[in-house]
Every structure is written in C-alpha cells, then in structure tokens.
C-alpha cells in the first residue's frame, strides 16, 4: 500500500531490528456499489398516459429511472429519420404530367439550393412562366396549385386527393377553377406569381409542410385573395396538418372552400378576413375535439 512503509520495513531488518513494523491502521471499508444502480422499471403517470393519447407529440412518454425508455428513444430516432427522409425527398421528373397536371418549376435548380434559397423558390422560372401563359385558363375565381414544399412525400401521398376534393368543392359552389397544376421546388409565396399570371381572384397553394416527428406526410394550404407579387403572410390564411391523422383531405377541402368563399365575398384575405360568420363550420368547432390519437409505432418494443 505504502511504498515508503515497504522500504522502511526492509531497512529495519537490515539495521538489526527483529520486530516487524506495527500493523498499519485499518483502512476504512468501502461499501461495494449496489448491483443495479438504476431502476429498470418503466414509469408513466396515469395523467401523462391519458394526455399522450390525444396527440402524436412527444408528451407523457414516461421514464426509466433517470432516462427515457429504450423504445421511446428508438421511436424518436425512427420518427426523426422519417422527417429527414421527407425533407430530402424530391418530386420525380414527370410526376405532374403523369397525374395530368401542368408542370411548373421555381427558379431553384437543385434540391440543395431549394433548401438554402427560399427566395428562389418563390418565383417561377422563365420556362414555367411561358408554359403558364400559354396553357393555363385565365380570369378564374380560384387557382389551386399543388406543390412539393418541404415534403415531396406528402405531395405525392395525399396531394392529388386534396387537389381533386378542393376543386370539386369549388365547382359545386359555382366558381370557375383554374387549370390543375403542380409546382416543383416551390415555396408558399409562389402562389402570388402564379395567381397573378392567370388572373385568379383567389390562389391556393397546397404543399408539403415542414415535417415534424413522425409526420412526413402533412400538407398545408395557404390561400390569398387577389394574388400579386409582394403579398405578405399577413395577407394569407392557412391550414396545416392535412393528413390521415390530422385533418383529413376531404374535410380540409370543404373548410378551404368555406374560407375561399369568405374571401370572394369580402374581397380580402389574411388578417382582414372576418371568419366569425363561418367559425362554427371551420376549425375545431366544426368537428369538436379530435378523437384520441395513437402514435404509429415505427419500431417494435420489447416487454
């Protein structure tokens, strides 16, 4: 234990001392660590479990000692991967044409640039502008535009369903609807230039929204009255979370048509638009509280 003590012990003998060194003081005993330092019991309060049932958000996930449960961490990583994949996805060439849509593109040239340059995503390139002038019906009431936005996965998933449902809702109300079209590398404000070019009274862009955990397939709709380049977000009305576990496309189409109707009637949009007359028919009031949500399990969890 002590280098010096060993040395002194030898020296004592060398110097003729026969007795051994007195016993050293007993060292204090150190308790062995417990066999298991952390509990392995998954804990979650009843309230947390109940709250978590109403959302796909990461709330009420419980704990194991001081850490998250392994399946929660794996689920989180899987959901994050879904979101990453959705952002990275691109609308394939020819997708619009195959679906019978007019194929437009913003001034962005590749996906990387799309993520870095929102300004370029808000304007049409020359080719698309010419295509639009040549082929699109002008002077219409509503111009819907399907677009990839930040999730081409969502656009390809329920984009057509929402576009068709919204178009149908508009026609039922007797409005003229513009040529169906889809834009690639598009940001929300692209609707201003498109709407202005075709002379639409209302433009509505339906595009993949910024993916969240486990929702890479959400669509958002942004609507503006009298689309002109230079309109701001204050001039727009939007609806988000249009997907199977949020607002379903058919329901969303109906609500969007209601808002479009209000725009046509009041000749304005955004913060100036008064939705109080239809508030019982849109938003949460229309469907009441959402039914309990179940998180889609992306990983298998053990016992």
């Amino acid at each position, binding site marked *: 234990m*002590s280098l010096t003590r060993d040395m002194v012990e030898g020296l004592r003998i060398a110097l003729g001392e026969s007795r051994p060194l*007195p016993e050293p003081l007993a060292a*204090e005993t150190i308790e062995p660590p417990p066999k298991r330092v952390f509990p392995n019991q998954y804990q979650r309060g009843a309230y947390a479990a109940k709250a978590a049932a109403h959302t796909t958000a990461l709330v009420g996930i419980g704990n194991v000692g001081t850490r998250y449960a392994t399946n929660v961490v794996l689920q989180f990583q899987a959901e994050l991967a879904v979101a990453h994949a959705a952002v990275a996805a691109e609308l394939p060439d020819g997708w619009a044409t195959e679906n019978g849509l007019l194929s437009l593109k913003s001034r962005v040239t590749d996906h990387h640039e799309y993520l870095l340059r929102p300004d370029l995503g808000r304007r049409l390139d020359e080719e698309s502008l010419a295509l639009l002038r040549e082929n699109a019906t002008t002077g219409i009431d509503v111009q819907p535009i399907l677009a990839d936005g930040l999730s081409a996965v969502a656009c390809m998933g329920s984009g057509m369903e929402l576009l068709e449902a919204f178009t149908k809702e508009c026609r039922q109300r007797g409005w003229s609807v513009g040529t169906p079209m889809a834009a690639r590398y598009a940001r929300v404000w692209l609707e201003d230039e498109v709407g202005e070019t075709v002379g639409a009274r209302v433009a509505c862009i339906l595009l993949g929204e910024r993916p969240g955990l486990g929702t890479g397939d959400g669509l958002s709709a942004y609507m503006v009255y009298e689309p002109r380049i230079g309109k701001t977000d204050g001039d727009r009305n939007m609806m988000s979370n249009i997907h199977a576990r949020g607002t379903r496309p058919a329901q969303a189409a109906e609500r969007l048509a209601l808002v479009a109707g209000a725009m046509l009637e009041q000749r304005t949009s955004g913060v100036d638009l008064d939705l109080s007359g239809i508030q019982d028919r849109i938003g949460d009031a229309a469907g009441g509280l959402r039914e309990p949500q179940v998180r889609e399990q992306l990983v298998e969890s053990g016992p």
Partner: protein
Amino acid sequence: MILEPIYPKVLSVRRIHGAHPAVLEAYGADPARHNSLGLITCDQDDPTFVALDEATKRAPVDVVFARSFYAGADHSSGRLSGEILGVLAASDPDEIEEGLKAAVRTLEHDACFYSADASGSIAVFPHVIGSLGHYLAAEAGLQPGDAMAYLVAPPIEATIALDTALKSADVRVAKIFTPPTETNYAAAWLTGDLHACRAAAEAFARAVVEVGHDPIEEACC
C-alpha cells in the same frame, strides 16, 4: 527500537463553502474558479504536504495554501494548530469532500515520520512518492506523474544523509531546503525513476540513523 512510525495527528478538518472573495484571494485561490475551501491542520507538516498533493490526484482540487508554522508542532499557537495549515480549493463542495477524504486517508495510512533513534528524539521522513500530483510537481518543477523522494530530517542528519542519498542512487535534485525551515528541519526533493527514488530514500534513512548513532565523529587523520 528504531524506525518506528510516528503517526501524524489530524487536528482539524473544516470546509468553507461559498468563501468570501477576499478570503479566497488572500489564500491564493481564484474567485473565478474556486468557490469552496477545505482546510486541514496536522501536527506533521511534511506528511501533510504529501497528503494535499495526493488530494490533487484524487479530485479536481487545487492546493492554494500550505504553510508550516514556526518551530513546529511542539510550539504551536493552540491545540488545533499543529504545524501546518493546508487549504484545498475547488469549484464545488463535492470536490472538496473528495479531496479532504484523500488527504486524510494519506495521513492515516501512508505518509508519516519515523523515529531514527532509540529515544525517539530524531525523526526522519524518507518518503517515496510513486507519482506526483500537480501540486508538488509544480512546487518541485517536475511533471505530474514523476517519482520523487521527499526527504526530511533535522539539520545535521539531513545534510549528511542528503549527500549519501545523492551518491547512492541515480537521482537528481529537484529542490533542497537548507536549515532552518519553518520547523527547523532540513529537506530535499530528489527525482529519478521509482527504484532510484526508493534507493535514495533508503540511503537517506539509513544515514540519518547512522548519524544518530555516531554524532561526534573521531577525527580520521
């Protein structure tokens, strides 16, 4: 009866948590880094220096103050004074606690003086440190991890024994403290590899015992 261990007595162990900046500064601590102090007094200064150094190996603490008192424990200013006050400084109380534990453990189980004569009136400290902490390394101008022989004895014994130690082992001098030190001893810090340090400490202790046996030497010629 020679080379009996003379165990050091720890006389006080106290902490100051959230010490006043003026106190921190006065005792060599840095208020920007240090918040807690651990204080220790003991009736043997050299084992305490070793113990404080040991603390720097066991916990992220700094030895900010360690001074011997004049004329040693037998002439101390009170029953708690002993012959040294050592002060550890750290950023939080837990580190101080670990540091103090290591220091007290060293004083109780490792570093001690030994009697070098039958009457016990000559004490020698032939201590071998296998691996220096950053406190003594800095004091000695060596690197943490170096081996060192920490050798202390009364003036005449230490002078002769130091000469013997240097001639008996492949060591070099890190520092020599000629008498009188505060406690009226003399000391030397020698370094080399561990075996050399051990050999030097052994030669030193042997020489101190020898001087005690034969203090008044016959003229040789």
